[in-house]
């Protein structure tokens, strides 16, 4: 790995440091914790007496894993808590197996719905056999604005495997309280429990009063006395039939009983009991804001409209629902996502009871998409206008129409749509030149289909590169090219990051391609980390997140399964990269050809080098300050470079020369001097506009002298330097 040995990479730490948060995690009883939602949940785990914790990082719950990685020596080891960042979500889910026989609590976490997909094999087995110790699965629900994945509900998993699902109301005290209760629900029902954390909720800030951390009865310092065997815990017939029955006869009813007893769900009574709203805990705040903006509630939750807040969204508590709706003429169900499982279940309950209560839901709210403030306000306004008698309904309608008319008035001023701005490769990213190389190769030999993977590499599918055709899942790019290549009469071409390689790519992709004798080109982008999620450690980074040295080699893994055609490229040398890729494409009879680009993530490199350079500069050592530039007079402004580079620091500048019709290229001060723009100009023979400038700060005496001589000579040649 260039630009960072294993040690350097690990010592660098994650993109965000949690030194301050670690102190908060050891707070005792009665102290005020202030911080992010996901860290409050982390503290709640420690207060619940867990014996193990694990997970796979990804937005929005990475911080839970990161903070434990940093805290492992100081907090986890003394408490006897086992911790691992698993190789995938399936591995993390499999950790929960420890709670099947033994009365020990544990928690795992990942991004949902994608991580839940990966983990589902283990989850289904776990849900069938059931658990003894409290088992919590914290889902970072990546749904709505800022999401990087397909939009689906996690609810389906809860239903199909009968796993209780908690969707907490976001008040930080309550969030911590509910997290602790999840273990109670789990132990009462012998089922693992899902705790669903929304993307914005993971990063909200707030406060709660802490409790003492609880050391589990059994932990690594005090192990369970002996192993247990019980054939009833094995998922094989006939036990699996008993498991299925137990889910509905005992386990789910026990979850309901525990939740009723502990008031997991909440009723906020109102002034008029003829109507009401049923909401998921996670959308409660949005509903209350809607009511307050429509004049039916205040900022503290004092409301005219009764609200039943479901913190436990699966299973539903039938008695509570009947109690809430029995005197009502109508209710509105605010349920984000589709299918509308909650609405359907409640309608069934009301129907079975023969109650005369109209059920509104998806008819007034959108079928799909995030339930943000405006969306919920519109739905609630429509409900109040239709169902609430007299002043409440009229006021809501009036306030809503004022908001809308004010908004439309403002929108009408805008002359044109704003340019879209999707995420992209960072300045200096070593993956960018690979995409440029592929685009140049396509100009040379015609377009070919490329299967992309999860991670930063996927940005290659977006402008200006447009070189990725499909994405099917983490580590699945090579596997997903299997039938495409033959169908198009080309080699399979796939891109995969190092994260994807270790997650799933090696088994599902490489081994499959090798075994089935694919005619394939695989480009592995080994930048040292799971960079997209915030520089998480990977098997090939060099150490575990805890700092235990442990290095696995991508190349050795490939050679171990018989891959022979392996070439490394320095992606910043674009011509060489193009040549190697061309060679790989042409080696049709050689089976699987792997090109590995192993340049470190530029963000990581900069995090390490910037402070080092600043320190060296301060200490009087020679430090080179470098940057690329464009000679405005030489640039003719056709922007070919932009279409091959896409670098954020390569931008436009309007010249004051009347002969320049279009803005010229310009390299701004964010340039990190990776050289890609110059290389692109070279490789595609674009123009001679680019130059590299290097300032030698704190020069040696010799350097100073030679510079002086050089400047004198330059001056003789007529240059002011």
């Amino acid at each position, binding site marked *: 790995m260039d630009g960072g040995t294993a040690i350097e990479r690990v010592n660098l730490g994650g993109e965000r440091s949690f030194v301050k948060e670690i102190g908060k995690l050891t707070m005792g009883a009665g102290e005020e914790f*202030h911080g992010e939602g996901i860290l409050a949940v982390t503290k709640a785990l420690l207060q619940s007496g867990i014996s193990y914790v694990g997970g796979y990082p990804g*937005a929005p719950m990475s911080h839970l894993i990161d903070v434990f990685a940093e805290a492992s020596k100081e907090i986890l080891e003394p408490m006897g808590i086992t911790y691992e960042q698993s190789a995938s979500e399936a591995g993390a889910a499999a950790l929960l197996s420890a709670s099947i026989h033994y009365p020990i609590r544990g928690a795992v976490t990942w991004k949902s719905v994608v991580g839940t997909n990966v983990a589902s094999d283990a989850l289904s087995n776990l849900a069938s056999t059931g658990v003894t110790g409290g088992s919590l699965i914290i889902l970072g629900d990546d749904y709505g*604005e800022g999401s990087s994945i397909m939009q689906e509900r996690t609810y389906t998993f809860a239903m199909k495997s009968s796993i209780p699902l908690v969707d907490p109301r976001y*008040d930080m005290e309550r969030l911590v309280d509910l997290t602790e209760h999840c273990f109670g629900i789990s132990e009462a029902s012998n089922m693992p429990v899902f705790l669903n954390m929304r993307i*914005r*909720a993971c*990063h*909200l800030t707030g406060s709660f009063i802490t409790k003492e951390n609880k050391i589990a009865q059994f932990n690594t310092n005090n192990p369970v006395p002996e192993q247990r065997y019980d054939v009833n815990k094995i998922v094989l017939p006939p036990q699996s039939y008993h498991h299925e029955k137990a889910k509905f006869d005992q386990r789910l009813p026990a979850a309901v009983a525990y939740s009723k007893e502990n008031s997991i769900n909440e*009723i906020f009574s109102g002034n008029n009991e003829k109507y009401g709203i049923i909401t998921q805990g996670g959308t409660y705040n949005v509903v*209350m*804001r809607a009511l307050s*903006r429509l004049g039916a*509630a205040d*900022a*503290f*939750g*004092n409301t005219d409209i009764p609200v039943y807040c479901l913190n436990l969204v699966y299973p539903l508590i039938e008695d509570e629902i009947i109690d809430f709706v029995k005197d009502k003429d109508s209710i509105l169900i605010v349920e984000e996502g589709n299918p509308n499982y909650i609405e359907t279940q409640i309608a069934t309950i009301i129907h079975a009871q023969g109650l005369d209560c109209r059920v509104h839901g998806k008819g007034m709210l959108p079928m799909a998409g995030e339930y943000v*403030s*405006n969306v919920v306000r519109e739905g609630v306004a429509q409900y109040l206008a239709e169902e609430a008698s007299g002043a409440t309904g009229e006021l809501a309608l009036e306030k809503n129409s*004022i908001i809308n008319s*004010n*908004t439309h*008035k*403002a929108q009408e*001023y*805008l*002359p*044109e749509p704003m340019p879209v*701005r999707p*995420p*992209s490769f960072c300045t200096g990213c070593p993956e960018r030149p690979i995409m440029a190389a592929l685009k140049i190769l396509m100009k040379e030999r015609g377009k070919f289909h490329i299967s992309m993977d999860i991670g*930063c590499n996927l940005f290659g599918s977006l402008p*200006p590169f447009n070189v990725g055709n499909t994405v099917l899942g983490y580590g699945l790019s090579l596997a997903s090219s299997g039938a495409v290549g033959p169908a198009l009469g080309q080699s399979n071409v796939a891109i995969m990051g190092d994260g994807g390689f270790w997650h799933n790519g090696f088994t599902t992709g490489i081994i499959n391609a090798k075994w089935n004798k694919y005619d394939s080109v695989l480009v592995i982008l080994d930048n040292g980390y799971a960079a997209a999620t915030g520089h998480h450690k990977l098997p090939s980074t060099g150490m575990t997140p805890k700092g235990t040295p442990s290095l696995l080699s991508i190349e050795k893994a490939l050679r171990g399964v018989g891959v022979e055609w392996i070439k490394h490229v320095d992606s910043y040398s674009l011509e060489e990269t193009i040549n190697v890729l061309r060679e790989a494409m042409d080696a049709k009879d050689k089976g699987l050809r792997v090109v590995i680009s192993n340049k470190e993530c530029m963000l990581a490199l900069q995090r390490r080098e910037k402070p080092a350079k600043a320190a060296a500069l301060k200490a009087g050592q020679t430090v080179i*300050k470098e*940057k690329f530039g464009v000679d405005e*007079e*030489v640039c*003719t402004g*056709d*922007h070919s470079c932009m279409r091959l580079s*896409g670098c954020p620091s*390569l931008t*436009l500048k309007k010249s004051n*020369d*009347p002969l320049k*019709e*279009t*803005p010229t290229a310009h390299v701004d001060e964010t340039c990190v001097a990776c050289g890609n723009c110059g290389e692109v*100009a070279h490789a595609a023979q*674009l123009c*001679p506009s680019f130059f*590299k*400038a290097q*300032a*030698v700060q704190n*020069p040696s005496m010799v350097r100073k002298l030679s*510079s002086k001589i*050089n400047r004198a000579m330059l001056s*003789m*040649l007529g240059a002011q330097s």
Partner: protein
Amino acid sequence: MNKVNKIKSNVRPICILVGALGGQGGGVLVDWLVDAARKAGYHAQGTSTPGVAQRTGATTYYFELFPEKNLQKTPIFTFFPGSDDLDLMVAMEPTEAGRAIERGFVTKFTTVISATDRVYSTAEKVSAGDGRINIVPVVDAIQKASKKLVQLDLTALSKGTNARGNAIVLGAIIGSGILPLTKDECRDSIKSKNVAVESNLAGFEIGLKAIQNNNSVNSSDPDLIFEKAPSAFDEKITLFPENAHLIISHGINRLIDYQNSDYANFYLERLKKIHNATNSSDGKLVSEVARHLARWMSFEDVIRVAQLKTRPGRLARIRKDLNINDQIPLKVTDYFKPGREEFMGMLPKSISWLIPNVGKLKKGKGISLHLPTGSAFGYGMLKILSSFRPFRAKSTQYKEEQKIIELWLAAITASANVNEDLACQTAALAILARGYGPVRKSGLDKLISLFNDWDARLESDKNGLSIEVDQHILLAHSNPDAT
């Protein structure tokens, strides 16, 4: 069952939305606010949508503060901004303020603090023409749509300091008085973060000051600078329509710089023919041709590039760009990749075949040169190349370019006889003669094939020709990858 107090309060939270691009420090800005609010004893909540959006994409951060202290009950905060409910919209880039209007978050209720510094989107950059959206009407819309617009030229404000934009914006937020937070509470918040405290405090003070004496910032492009031709040309220039004088004068200067006075006179002769061919006296066609012709006649051959790269002030300008004084040794490396075509283009046609068609000089390849133009050696090499100017007229490329210029001028003249608008459009076709190497070659090839049967088509299919010309020009101004 939770029995609640039914007396409703009228106080609402103060809501602030921050629109930024990943890497602009929007998250830290909200952290400062949350921390300052807590220090001051207010309930507040910040939230963001991290994830891949933060990798250079557009993202938002949202902050709410309840403006009363010592509360009996905790106020309910939400994660999403609502329409007509924002007290303040902060944009680290002006189109992000535009986007907030687009999404319905800015109304007459909302104050907008917006940076004026454009960060162009990929969509704007990849156009082969000027793909930038016109920001002037956008800023105008923000002004009209909002309660008040405060513009901050962050680049200008931070000049000469290490201050980052987010710290300046924090100062402006506090200076605006929208939040009940004091300056000291914010200063403490910056200090307790313990990251770049000095520069952030400096930025904070800059922002405080900027909002006090806020003048609206003109965010349009720089004014064009027309150079004045030597007075010897004055008389000749007056023969042309008056509104073409500025550009002709500029063109003359350019061509003297490029070659010599004779060449500038040649330019005027060519223009004269166009002037004579046009019937209208508004000077529109002459101006159009004057601009394109001067640019085309100063096409960037190897000699010209060498000349531009050895401009006396170039190294000093690079120093300024790097922000280093003249005592610090400077290395400048230029990226050249001349191919066989370039070498042949430099020589007279009779001997250009001498350039062998082998190795790196094979068609479509080139010799990669990293020339140290910051050294006397590299600079001297380019200086020698640029001194070949007197022989330029003998080079193959010069002859080729002039031939196509003549075809172009002939096409304009012919069109002017038929239709003035078509003549102007034909003049604009000159945009195809731009770039270097393969880009230039493909543009010139297009022009040659277009001018090949120009006169015949002008006679038989004037409308079809006009449409085709428009299409070529449109294409040259859009994103070629999109077609």
